[in-house]
């Protein structure tokens, strides 16, 4: 494949990783949501580019889903959730932002280290894509475990899933990609609804140890 397409794909994928870092950096919920929307847009571009390069038209559907659902609907929904439930606006972090960033860099190093062992036999694009996708996935997970708010955890999960979609689309001629992305969107939708229905305010930790003592037969 020619250099240009490669570079573009590379650029977009790299952009995703960068945006993941920006998300880690944020400490306000709204801006977090905005940046997530931005990541969704970039993902949509990347997917579309892959569709164009591999001339696999069905991938455009995935791109569209990414654009419509993740870049528009879900962020809006979450905005409204935040307002409705009166969740206060700061991102509560478990460890300091700086530390999180350091950890993130470590993760990136790790994923590159892992992927560089892969033989060159696999075509370069896939290889780069994979390593970036792995970065995004790991950063998403990192976000989930270092943020207390339900919302930011959901965001983390969705960015993790962005990484998955990136990988899936990067894998040339992979079947079921669309179905999978649909399935995942359903999942995410469930989660958002869940947050909204169950009034899960501050964190997934609604049921803290004390609550457990009450609600479970497992207390002393």
């Amino acid at each position, binding site marked *: 494949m020619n250099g240009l397409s490669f570079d573009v794909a590379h650029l977009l994928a790299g952009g995703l990783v960068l945006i993941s870092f920006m998300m880690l950096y944020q400490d306000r919920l709204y801006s977090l949501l905005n940046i997530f929307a931005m990541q969704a847009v970039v993902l949509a571009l990347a997917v579309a580019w892959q569709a164009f390069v591999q001339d696999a038209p069905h991938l455009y559907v995935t791109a569209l889903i990414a654009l419509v659902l993740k870049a528009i609907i879900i962020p809006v929904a979450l905005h409204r959730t935040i307002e409705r439930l009166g969740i206060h606006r700061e991102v509560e972090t478990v460890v300091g932002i700086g530390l999180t960033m350091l950890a993130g860099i470590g993760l990136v190093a790790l994923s590159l280290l892992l*992927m560089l062992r892969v033989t060159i036999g*696999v075509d370069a694009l896939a290889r780069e894509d994979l390593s970036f996708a792995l970065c995004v996935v790991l950063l998403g997970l990192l976000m989930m475990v270092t943020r207390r708010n339900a919302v930011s955890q959901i965001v983390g999960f969705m960015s993790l899933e962005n990484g998955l979609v990136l990988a899936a689309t990067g894998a040339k001629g*992979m*079947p*079921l990609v669309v179905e999978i992305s649909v399935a995942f969107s359903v999942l995410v939708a469930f*989660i958002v609804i869940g947050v909204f229905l169950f009034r899960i305010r501050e964190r997934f930790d609604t049921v803290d140890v004390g609550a457990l003592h009450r609600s479970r*037969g*497992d207390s002393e």
Partner: protein
Amino acid sequence: MTAFDAIRAVLIIPALAAGLLAALPGYRVTSRINVVASLLTLLAAGSLFFLARPEPGSYLFIDDLNIVFIVLNCFVGFTTSVFSMTYIAHELETGKLTPVYLRFYHAMFQIMMFGMNLAFVSNNIGLMWVAVELATLSTVLMVGIYRTPAALEAAWKYFILGSVGIALALFGTILVYMAAQPVVGEGTDAMVWTVLIQKVSAFDPALLNVAFVFLLLGYGTKVGLAPLHAWLPDAHAEGPTPISAVLSGLLLNVALYALLRFKMLLAANPAAISPGPLMVILGLVSLIFAAFMLYRRRDIKRLFAYSSIEHMGIIVFAFGMGGPLANFAGLLHMVMHSLTKSGIFYAVGHIAQIKGTQRIADIRGLTSTHPWLGWGLVLGVVGIAGLPPLGIFMSEFLVVSSTFARQPLLAIPLVFGLLVAFGALLLRLTGVAFGEPTGSTAPARASYVPMYAHFLLVLGAGFYLPPPLVSWFQNVAGLLG
């Protein structure tokens, strides 16, 4: 009719039944339909034995390995549907469930059966992933069906952890595809398991390794291996007991099955890391961790949930050890555990309904007040603790002795874990089954058929395994390498 129709039947019957049950009102009808549908599925599955095996398609196939799982799955599904007739009736009377939710419950039950059967028969790792996710989601909904805070929280925890697991598993699947694609070529073939297993030796080992790590953790979350187990105890404890039975008896097996498939892939590639050690370590960790956790349990269903973790640990350990003896033991242990544990949950369900509590401390002297339930529970716990004459004894015998002969240092923690778990289970059993009775002594309106059917099977297996079954197990053990 060919085996392929049988496979389709195994999938279609539950799907249709699900639709039907979602539409129909009235518990008497629906619960019976539920039973009938499960029975039909079981028959279809059973017919798989006798019909000629078709060529594996690119989506569905049937081989020695998955037939074990399918038949077991349909059997336990059937008995559970029978059990849930009486159980759910009681839930309706006590008003814990409304007819609407009941409809939902039955539909979900069939969807779950569909998902699990699909996972078993799918020859395509992508499809398998989708099926597992489907099964998981349906159980999530059923765990939360009581809508108590505890139930919702359990369902939520299950949901979130499950989704993360799913995501990891998917990433692993993609990696496998990436590894396969250069060798097999683009398109569906690169996801067809039967194709992969033939060509896997040429795949890129590094990719496979990373893939296996993600798959191990992804599907391992569903198997309930420590430290990925967190959802399991609460999901068992807070959901309806039939679902606890199915979770322990079947869903864990589904994830385990997926894990095994990929283990076989990796084992077939010389350059890749051997998956054995990872599985052995995770297995031991789960076993010992769960064994200790058993001691502080106050909730009887959560107790047995942890014992499921413990046994999954043993099974994964056995498969990790590999070799004909250990694999045979692993398979046997898996089957026996499914039967025994679901049987135990049947008993526990009725007990909890009679006593109106799941607190172990409030249940005493069952053998005096409810001999059938009490002695049934004793039999089940004795079986699950690995005592003869029940079947698990044989598998534990094989695992321990063969391990000690090969890796003495691994056998020590194994034996230690077994002993610690035994102590805890027996301690609780003594309290629940013996001593001065407490709580309601109202006679149980329960059908003991499913429970004792399971226990009798396990008892029989403890004495005698029919030769065809054995040769078939050995065959599968050979497949597992």
